[in-house]
């Protein structure tokens, strides 16, 4: 039996410790936000946060997580009360087919937990590992900037001092 700290609660799953976290989330715990895309750590649709850092859940053996806290998009808010990043993605209508969006949101959340005043370059390099095939990149980037502002920060120019 493996014990996991997910979205602030303790969850248990009776699985082989080599099982990728993504399968446990989707098949055993009913958390369907993170998606299976390539299964090779190349597309980012499975991205979740582990101790606030974005990781590919398809390549993370569940037994490797230990006491680290897992956050999925379900942990960031609900349809009725979305979190700041979810709200910003809605406001910018950043989703097209939506398959990459949970990974994108997890990645943006990870960035904004590290800093609410990222540079444009930091935003782009933080989001780069997640791929979107619909071409909504500009809206996704706008959503990340909007979310940064909603948290009292915003995207900054590295040449300008931050107050």
């Amino acid at each position: 039996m493996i014990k996991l700290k997910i979205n602030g609660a303790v969850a248990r799953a009776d699985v082989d410790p080599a099982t990728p976290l993504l399968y446990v989330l989707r098949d055993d715990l009913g958390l369907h936000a993170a998606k299976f895309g390539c299964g090779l750590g190349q597309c980012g649709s499975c991205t979740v946060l582990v101790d606030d850092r974005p990781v590919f859940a398809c390549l993370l053996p569940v037994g490797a997580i230990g006491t680290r806290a897992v956050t999925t998009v379900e942990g960031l808010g609900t349809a009725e009360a979305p979190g700041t990043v979810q709200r910003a993605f809605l406001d910018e209508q950043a989703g097209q087919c939506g398959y990459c969006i949970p990974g994108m949101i997890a990645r943006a959340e990870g960035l904004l937990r590290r800093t609410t005043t990222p540079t444009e370059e930091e935003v782009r390099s933080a989001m780069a590992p997640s791929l979107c095939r619909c071409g909504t990149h500009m809206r996704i980037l706008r959503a990340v900037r909007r979310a940064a502002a909603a948290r009292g920060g915003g995207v900054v120019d590295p040449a300008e001092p931050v107050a």
Partner: protein
Amino acid sequence: MTKACALKLFVTMVALVLAALVVLLVMAHRPAIAPIARPDPRGFDPGAIARGANLARLGNCVSCHQAAGGRPYAGGYPVKTPFGTIHGSNITPDATTGIGGWSRTAFAQAMREGVGRDGSHLYPAFPYTHYAGVTDGDIDALYAFLMTRPAVHATPPANDLIPPLGFRPLLAGWKLLFFHPRPLGAVRSQSAAWNRGRYIGETLAHCSACHSPRGLLQQEKRGDAAYDGGWSGGWYAPPINPRSPAVRAWTPERLYAYFRTGLSRHHAAAAGPMGPVTYNLARAAPADVHALATYYAWWMRDAPAARAEPPLPDRRALAERQHRDGARLYAGACATCHEPGAPMVVAGRPVLPLGTPLHEDNPRDTIQIILQGLRPPVEASGPYMPAYADALTDRQIADIVGYLKARHGTGPAWTDLEDKVAKARKESR
């Protein structure tokens, strides 16, 4: 010893030290070369500019003269040394922050003597020990190429060196000890390609700057130690001499393919600082890259793999028994791509034991590849591997590395892996 005698000795010592300092200062003094107005880019011969572009790629200049996210040749890349950090300078033709005011003479003096236009000695992180052998024609071509780049107004961050190394006249002492340029005469018994490869490899490409060990004062070790493996940017550059740990021969054809594509199907993908090198070699003149391949295949002609290619070890059952945790982590995190039969392997990517890192005498490269992953070095569709720095702990990466070495590795056993992962993580920050 009487008091007077001791005093006399002390005074003599102080006088000697002062005299040495004066000699050093006199010796170190180099006059400034007067600045010039930036030469008109239209005045340079297009042929020379094109030759210079090729030479700049062979020399991988941009690796140190461009910061992450910065403009090419505008400098700012931090070169980490045991004595602190040195930043690549701006070598675009900007008049104030770059080399726009440098005459061809000043440029040649920097390249071949390690002295800047203002007369100050340059740190040997800029490998003038190699560039001393660059021909006049090639200096002209590089000068033409650099002076016709877009001028970027950018000052790199100040160097951060332990005292007293900020005092540049000391470098004259370093040069006295370690900088003895000798002309590279042609070796008649070798082919034209070999001689060309030697010229490029020993001068502009400065391969031994990473692939040779360094002494206490960061001087490259030569002679029998040449190309015996060294360190670069937190990565280990393995030996490329008869002690090459590769398990497949590096023939000129295989080296050429590796240089041009960032991937050898008989070895592995270029990783770490070698990625940008292959990126640049993929864009250099094919004949020159072939010459380099000829020369370095010659260096490795007596390596074990050149004599006989051993069967690839796969001690799976034993490794699983010895490294239970590592085997489990590998199954969940690595096997999807690396196990024989995985899509990547079926598509023709080399299997793990073909790569040299598992056969090296230290685990640094294996650890770095897991921590940082691989980005396609040459084309956007090239070899890729996700980074695991955020997904796995030091202990877990150590477990995987131990398992892989036991299953596929050869050469000396690796120890204290968890500490070594922690150290690699710290050094790549």
